[in-house]
């Protein structure tokens, strides 16, 4: 039986922008559907239209049905109970101050009696592994825990359909994987229908029954993930978002059941052949030294008397024209290190020496933190040469928009443009790939390279091994407050076993020269 179906569904916003263009599909109950596409392709709009109460205003035509009733006619109360919705930002979805209260929120809203709430809240907390934080303040949770809490709170109503709009885009890879695991368990154990829109497909595609690829409001591929290579052209821009095995399979012109996981890719004959045939030369040894702009020497940093030290004896040199990528898990001190380099935090001991008269620019995790004006143009126009900069970062069409109305990738570009207008000698970036799609990520790598080529130093801290492998000159692994290994991307990623790129995991032992598919591949 189908739970959601659409026929010739079109939707346009009041400003005339067409978001959906005659799409048709039919989703059977119990499916796990992944919707993907570049930012602005209409996947969020589609998901929101399915949920009564969140549907955007605009002109709708065609049919969208939930369980055989027109979606806009489903009573609000039924929609609240049966359709769960989890959004992108873990923080702003949370309403109350305590974990237990957040779990109970939806149950209180639909007016369940106290005893029933007590049972369900207990059940949810133990199912999602939230017992240890049950009585804690929400503010004390990590991003991953917050998002898990949002999922648990939606699941407490026992929904039949769960809609997830880029739920892992703000999470680090490990938290993202455990979130996806929890979603897939809900699907497997209870038959909850899952429709998830997501940029990060590496682990997701393997567990989906079906994938829908959207472009400009249309569905350009709607098939089982295994058939994706036959449905999606080899050089389509969405290919760069696909799991590494799919990309390699497609590069070899594969035209059948494509491998989805690294394991399948390593045993697939076509993939092996393609990987063996790849050539890449990597510069070995550390790059030659250039002018040192910032030198951090034996830093110790702590945030309080009773808290553990965040950085322990970390040293790092920032050199002109080089991109330094600091990788490391959550809480390893990456952001702290960056803030020390920017001079925002004073270390307990050790020193940060900035060369005289250099300009340092810092891009925070949330680019919105550096926006102060009401339009994109006002953010930029005070500086000479802003028009060229706007063009370089493809912002010309967005000049009158409010910075907060931009997509993740666009915000990132605006922030970069704003920072580069000051001609910084050092550019420091905190998790620049957070919340942006694969295409934006590839472009970001290009921008960073051109910035370094023009003589500035770039330091980025990131979870994203692919970005680091693609653009960095030096990579350093920060663990437990110190840099435990450092080297050129090739040496770095080929020596690391777990902390490495998917491409390296696929190619290991088959072609040891490969660490990434984009650069030198």
């Amino acid at each position, binding site marked *: 039986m189908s739970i959601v179906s659409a026929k010739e569904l079109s939707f346009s916003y009041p400003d005339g922008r067409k978001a959906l263009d005659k799409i048709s599909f039919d989703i059977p109950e119990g499916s796990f559907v992944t919707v993907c596409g570049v930012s602005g392709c209409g996947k969020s709009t589609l998901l929101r239209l399915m949920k009564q109460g969140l549907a955007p205003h605009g002109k709708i035509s065609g049919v969208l049905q939930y369980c055989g009733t027109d979606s806009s006619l489903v009573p609000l109360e039924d929609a609240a109970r049966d359709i769960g919705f989890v959004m992108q930002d873990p923080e702003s979805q949370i309403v109350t*101050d305590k974990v237990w209260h957040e779990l109970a929120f939806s149950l*209180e809203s639909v007016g369940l009696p106290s005893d029933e709430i007590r049972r369900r809240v207990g059940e949810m907390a133990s199912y999602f592994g939230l017992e240890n934080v049950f009585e804690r303040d929400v503010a004390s949770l990590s991003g991953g825990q917050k998002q898990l809490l*949002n999922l648990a709170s939606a699941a407490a109503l026992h929904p039949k359909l769960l809609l997830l709009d880029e739920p892992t885009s703000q999470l680090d890879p490990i938290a993202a994987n455990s979130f996806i695991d929890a979603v897939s368990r809900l699907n497997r154990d209870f038959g909850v229908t899952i429709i998830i829109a997501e940029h990060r497909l590496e682990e997701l595609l393997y567990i989906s029954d079906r994938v829908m690829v959207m472009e400009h409001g249309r569905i350009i591929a709607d098939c089982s993930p295994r058939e994706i290579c036959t449905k999606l052209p080899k050089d389509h821009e969405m290919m760069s978002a696909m799991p590494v095995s799919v990309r390699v399979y497609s590069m070899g012109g594969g035209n059948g059941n494509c491998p989805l996981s690294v394991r399948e890719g390593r045993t697939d004959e076509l993939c092996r052949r393609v990987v063996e045939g790849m050539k890449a030369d990597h510069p070995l040894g550390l790059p030659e030294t250039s002018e040192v702009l910032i030198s951090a020497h034996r830093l110790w940093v702590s945030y309080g008397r009773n808290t553990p030290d965040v950085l322990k004896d970390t040293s790092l040199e920032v050199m002109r024209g080089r991109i330094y990528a600091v990788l490391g898990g959550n809480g390893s001190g990456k952001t702290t290190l960056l803030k020390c380099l920017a001079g925002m935090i004073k270390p307990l001991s050790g020193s940060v020496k900035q060369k005289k008269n250099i300009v340092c620019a810092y891009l925070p995790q949330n680019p919105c933190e550096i926006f102060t004006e009401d339009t994109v143009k006002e953010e930029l126009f005070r500086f000479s040469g802003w028009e060229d900069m706007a063009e370089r970062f493809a912002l010309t069409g967005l000049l009158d928009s409010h910075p907060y109305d931009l997509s993740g990738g666009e915000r990132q570009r605006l922030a970069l443009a704003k920072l580069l207008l000051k001609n910084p000698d050092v550019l420091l970036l905190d998790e620049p790939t957070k919340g942006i799609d694969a295409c934006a990520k590839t472009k970001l790598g290009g921008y960073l390279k051109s910035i370094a080529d023009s003589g500035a130093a770039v330091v980025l801290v990131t979870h994203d091994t692919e970005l680091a492998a693609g653009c960095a000159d030096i990579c350093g692994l920060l663990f437990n407050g110190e840099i435990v290994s450092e080297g050129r991307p090739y040496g770095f990623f080929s020596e690391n076993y777990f902390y490495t790129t998917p491409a390296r995991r696929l190619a290991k032992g088959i072609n040891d020269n490969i660490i990434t598919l984009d650069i030198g591949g």
Partner: protein
Amino acid sequence: MRSLERAHPLCCFVYLAAVLGITIFTRDPIALAESAVGAALLLILSGNIRIVIWLPVVTVVSAVTNPVFVHRGDTVLFFAGDLPVTAEAVLYGAVFGLMISAAAGWSINAVKYITTDKYIWLFGRMLPVSGLVLSCGLRLVPLFIRRTRDFSASQGAVGIRDTLKAFSASVGYSAEEAMTSADSMRARGYGTARRTSYSLYRLGGRETVQLLAVVLVSVSAVSAMICGGGAFEFYPAVSGVGLSAADMLLYIAFGIMCVMPSCVILHENIKRSRIGCYDQGALK
């Protein structure tokens, strides 16, 4: 210690209202001494030892300063210039200081043991939405402060040293986020049905007994006061401690009341340390 933290909100509120009310309204030195000792004991048992030092300091300061302003009373100790310093004024100052320090002590204890979820229970009981509003506020205010600080730090790093700009950007960003929160509330059925209010606290047999005990001692103490217990006079001359039935009832009931929470903690500490003994025994 934990049983006090997990005590039922109703029990906590009745207790706090009674103990603070009596402390503030009585001028009887013995009742106030009981109150101050009870508050200090609970502070010590809760680990707030440093604050306890301030209680006698406040009392002494008040005893010293009151005669500077008040010159009533029959017993003149000495003359400062041509103004009399009287024993009654000193005593009144001391008792007043005792009242202030006892009330402050109980309030500090209340902050520790009457946590926000107990307030939410209380307000949620009266009007489910008010409990929710309180809970939202308790999340949003610290979040906003943290965010403004982050905005200000990040803008400082790019050379914008204008706190007002950071503040207004933070307000704007929070408003954006509030729209997501509103969506999230709607997605989870807010406003679709009559709201219920859930709380972790349950009023079971044990809680009823505790509540009855609290009500019993509070009612005895308050009625003793109404019947004239603890009517202590300072001016023109100190009336002396009364020994009537009402006075005795007040001292006993209020005395029990003031040490109740400390007894709960002590009792539990003893029980817990016994568990420790058993464990060590088992290890041998």
